[in-house]
């Protein structure tokens, strides 16, 4: 015998009833009520902690049961089986497994899932987004961190002409804009905005010397533009921001730092290698050796401006390995 409260769904009247089984039927008996319904038509609430469970009948009426142990006894003779989520929620081993799995999945998503999804997303975003972001970023930085270039006008024009005369491996010539700026803060550096605009700083041109080396650096930056690495990184940081916003509350103020992040973006080794490979391919396509890019890297590493904090190489990790790779490409290029 199991005591329960019966509610008719039409009023808040409580009827105390006794529940019992008779064959395949549930019998509800109490104050002016005597019901007998096939148990197969009764829906049993899943167990949620020690909350009362309800046995719901098809007409919207139900019995509220507080004695969960007695209810289990009654259910055990009906062939009722709790749902799998219900059972997992009470199973200590599975709860511990869930803790470990949640932590592991979040870490994996951050390490691999996020870059993959951001790269996919970057290639599907309308170009207008990259354009707007880049225009805004440039507007914010010009006159504050970025100053007009002090390189002679003739050299800039000559470099621009050579840059636009480059033939891209996939055909055509670069449609990226090439901008010259000077920046005491950012030192010997070059970077690509989300729309592919390449900004090269005076200190970098001074440090690497010759035009072929400069073109090699541009080729590398075109690799970032081609792979839309800027947008990818932006999507990644937005996603991380959104995650923290949802997880611990509003930190939208921090997102105001986005323009600075675009410039000081730290590309992963993977993205740098992609940009190197594209740059090398582009150089060979134009009859130049990939070793030129290695030369530029070497000169930058040797110059105090390049290796200093905030310089080109600080955002481009493991230079030695990259130079070795590029020089190997250069040797095979000469052999052909």
């Amino acid at each position, binding site marked *: 015998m199991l005591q329960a*409260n019966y*509610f*008719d*769904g*039409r*009023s*808040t*009247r*409580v009827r105390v009833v006794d529940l019992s089984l008779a064959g395949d039927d549930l019998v509800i008996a109490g104050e002016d009520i005597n019901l007998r319904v096939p148990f197969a038509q009764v829906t049993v609430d899943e167990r*949620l*902690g*020690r*909350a*009362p469970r*309800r046995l719901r009948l098809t007409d*919207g*009426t*139900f019995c*509220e049961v507080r004695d969960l142990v007695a209810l289990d006894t009654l259910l055990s003779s009906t062939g009722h089986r709790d749902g799998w*989520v219900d059972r*997992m*929620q*009470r*199973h200590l081993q*599975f*709860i511990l497994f*869930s*803790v470990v*799995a*949640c932590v592991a*999945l*979040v870490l994996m*998503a951050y390490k691999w899932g996020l870059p993959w999804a951001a790269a996919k997303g970057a290639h599907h975003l309308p170009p*207008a*987004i990259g354009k*707007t*972001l880049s225009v805004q970023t440039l507007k914010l930085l010009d006159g*504050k961190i970025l100053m007009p270039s002090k390189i002679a006008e003739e050299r800039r024009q000559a470099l621009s002409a050579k840059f636009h005369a480059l033939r891209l491996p996939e055909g055509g010539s670069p449609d990226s804009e090439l901008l010259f700026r000077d920046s005491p*803060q950012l030192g010997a550096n070059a970077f690509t905005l989300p729309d592919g605009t390449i900004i090269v700083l005076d200190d970098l041109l001074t440090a690497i010397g010759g035009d072929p080396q400069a073109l090699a650096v541009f080729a590398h930056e075109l690799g970032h533009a081609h792979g839309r690495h800027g947008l990818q990184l932006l999507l990644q940081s937005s996603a991380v921001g959104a995650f923290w916003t949802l*997880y611990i509350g*509003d930190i939208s103020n921090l997102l105001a730092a986005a323009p600075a992040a675009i410039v000081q973006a730290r590309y992963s080794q993977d993205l740098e290698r992609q940009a190197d490979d594209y740059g090398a391919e582009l150089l060979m396509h134009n009859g130049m050796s990939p070793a030129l890019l290695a030369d530029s890297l070497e000169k930058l590493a040797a110059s105090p401006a390049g290796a200093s904090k905030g310089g080109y190489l600080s955002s481009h990790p493991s230079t030695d390995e990259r130079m070795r790779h590029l020089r190997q490409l250069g040797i095979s290029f000469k052999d052909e």
Partner: protein
Amino acid sequence: MDKEQLRFTGSGGEYFGIWIVNLLLTIVTLGVYSAWAKVRRLQYFYRHTEVAGSSFDFHGSPSRILVGRVIALVMLFAYNYSVRLRSPLTIVILVLIAVVMPWLLRNSFRFRLYNTSWRGTRFHFRGTVAGAYRVFLLNGFLALITIYVMAPFMHQRLKAYQHDNSWFGRTRCSFHARAGQFYVIYLLLLAALVVFAIVIGLSGIGGALVALSQAQKQGGHANPFAVFRAVAIFYGALILVGVSIGPAFHALITNLIWNNTRIGEHRIECKISPSALIWITMSNFVLVVLTLGLFIPWAMVRLARVQLESVRLLPAGDLQEFVAAEPEAIGAVGEEAATVFDFDISL
């Protein structure tokens, strides 16, 4: 008639198992399962809340909540897109959201109340769409152009719209708090914030922030350590307000609202202690951060308990005599959109 104290019988340890298993299922299904997890969370809290020996129940269907979540996400993306990238479309999208929002919020009230029951009798929300536009758009606009001097009045109108249009079965609820009472509590909030700002200023922390902003204006390089310290202090101050003045204000305003709400002739007494709520909020925050979130289930249970057990129902008659209304079907779109846009205006 005896006072009927609300009881909350949930426990953090018990809820942890439910929370973590549903979190895992949500991650594995890339968020799809979150609708089912939400129903389970609400059911856990509703069913562990009881008054006069009977518990509440939540009836919302997960598939409806899922549809609502998809629509809410689309709106969230449109909102972010338009705010971050100022294009001619921005105004159009923002106006569209402003026009749709009151309707969605009204639907969210309807969905939430219709799917809440006690002793098998459901609640209902019967506020009109016109009323929603008046409360959210017109009053919101008034609050904005009066630099939020009207905000307490707007809050009072919103609560009146919500509670005057709520029904339990065929019994109508009513709201009796006056705007003047809201102003008193808002003035207390303002006074507390001013005192807080003065204390921050006197302690020299404000000085550090001013020095920092000046260094930035001159284009100079601030010492990275000083920058970090200033930023940490700034967010520390924000968090301190969030776990002290915030909960105290919440306790006072919630008490005012529920002490002035009646279900038919039945009255409600709500006595959340501001100091108790401050303590719970502070300790929850510290423990959630220290455990990287694993304390969340306990935090939720503690917060629910301190609030719910401060509420008593003062019956004016027999609680057995409420009669249910005719059933109606209601979608979940509004509620989900409101959740994503963080307009949690219910208790």
